[in-house]
């Protein structure tokens, strides 16, 4: 009796194995779709009530003043890394500025130029922080 039970269990197991093997073969012939697991329709999506559906967000642009022996005024330019101009303004080097820009959510860096001074700036906590300092100083 015991042996018959064992044989039965083994047979069932082998059956399961053989079925899954076949299914694996089918999967190889019909690979999983590129986007597995997403909702089948718009209506079926599970949406967080706080989701705002926006593909762009407002970030703040903060320019730190630099005091110099002379007043310097030039055009400040904010560009995407791919080169498109996002924003321009006339900026005095000795004045602090805080303003706001709209950027695509997927944009995490911008290039800020001020005459010959150019920096790639990471957007951190929806803020672009820019100063005119061009190098760090060695101090002993």
């Amino acid at each position, binding site marked *: 009796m015991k042996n018959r039970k064992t044989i039965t269990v083994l047979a069932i197991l082998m059956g399961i194995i053989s079925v899954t093997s076949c299914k694996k073969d089918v999967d190889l012939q019909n690979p999983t779709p*590129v*986007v597995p697991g*997403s*909702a089948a*329709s*718009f*209506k079926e*999506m*599970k*949406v*967080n*009530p*706080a*989701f*705002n*559906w*926006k*593909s*762009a967000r*407002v970030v703040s642009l903060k320019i730190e003043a*630099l005091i*110099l*022996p*002379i*007043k*310097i*005024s*030039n*055009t400040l330019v904010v560009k*995407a890394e*791919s080169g*498109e*101009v*996002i*924003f*321009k*303004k*006339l900026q005095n*080097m000795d004045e602090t500025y*805080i*303003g*706001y*820009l*709209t950027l*695509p*959510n*997927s944009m995490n860096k911008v290039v800020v130029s*001020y*005459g*010959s*001074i150019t920096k790639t700036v990471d957007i951190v906590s929806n803020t672009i922080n820019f100063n*005119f*300092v*061009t*190098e*760090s*100083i*060695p*101090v*002993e």
Partner: protein
Amino acid sequence: MKLIKNLAVIVVAFLSVQLNAQVTMGFEPNSLPISNSCWAWGSMTGYYSASTIISGSLSARTIPLTSSLPTATWIKSPWLKPGSGNITFKVRLDGNSATSRSIRLRFIPYNALAAGTIKEGVAISDSFTYAFAAPVSGSGSNNIRNVSFTIPNSIANTNNVYKVMISFIGVGGTGRCIVDDVSIPGTYWANPSNSCLPLTLITDTDGDGVQDSDDAYPNDAIRAYDNFYPAKTNGTLMFEDLWPSVGDYDFNDLVLGYRYNTVTNSSNNIVEIKYEITPKAIGASLNNAFGFMLDGISDENIYSVEGLKNEAEWLSLNKNGTEADQKTATIIVFTSANSVLQNPGGSSGVNTDPKGIYVKPTTISFTVRFRDDEGKPVKSDVSTKDFTSENFNPFIVINQVRDQEIHLPTYSPSTKATEKTFGTSDDNSKEGNYYKSKNGMPWALNIPAEIPNTIEKVDFIKAYNYFSYWVESVGKEYADWYEDKEKYRNNDVLYIVK
């Protein structure tokens, strides 16, 4: 007039720098990096040892002086116009072994034709030398010494531009030199925003303070800069128009391309916004109108709306072209989608059926002005600091019924929208969270790029493969869902114009 304006620039610069008759460097933390103000040094560092600094909290210190070359260890001033008097600074040695130590001072003229970017000419021969008197090593060598060089008459007050180079020379041993409190009679004449080259006259034809090469309107003192949104291409607005009921979610009932240029002046105030709206597709049977609000802006701030001609029974305009009886500046762009993108026949929609006749869209261009012809604001300045794309609140008027509007999710309706429809059928609008369904779904989308619409009746997520990932991750994943990257789109269900 141009000469007077350019001369004005010189006079202002001259007056401002006369007050700064000395060009100084104290090497304090607030003056570092020294390159910020166009000073430079070679083989030197900031130094803060309390026992040997000269003044303040930092001095400059050389590396061990083992070279007699003036180009080995040095400090250079920014470009300046030397006045008359003495160049002074304080120095000390650090007490380490040394055979001899000296300092040489040279004037380097500006030469616009010099090779390279820094435009230094040949240094005038260094006849200015300070030799440290004995002892030059040991504890007795590290007294503070005051060094002074007289600017020669051939250089002082000539209006020519020079750099002053102070070189530190050493023979024998490893002793260093510490320097501080450099003071040069003269006028600072460098531009840190122009690679520290000498100040130059800018060409500013309209005198607004923005040089012509940066000014998008060089002959117009009222306007200076163009700021496009989206920056690269048109954006896309897509509407479902069965609100307050949900539709088929193909988001092609009305599809519009849009882009606007916020024109600013040299004070960063908005002069005008130039809009381009392009109706691209109509997948609806309803004849909708389109407009937008400028949230946070009263119509009293609008000088005029130029370039639109709209008439409809339900439309009433102010003299400045904004819609009448609105709390917020509201512009109706077109009153009839069917009129601006006409159905050629053969299919129910326009540009939603690949088998239908393609209708080439016509762009509607118009300008919303904030300032009059003299550049004065109508009511008060509107700065770009107070105005972003968040203020752009587009909407459709459903089927010619003025009080029925559909806005982007979370955006507020206009004064003319009836509140009676809110909360009915599938709508779950609440104060501050309008135009969402009970499941949080929108009736409109705003994409900061130009994207194709779906063909008729195709569910939107079938066309954009990562859209649902973006939504269901609350925006954390696939924020670029709309871009034309590999496997992002299903072009079989998109209306692609070939």
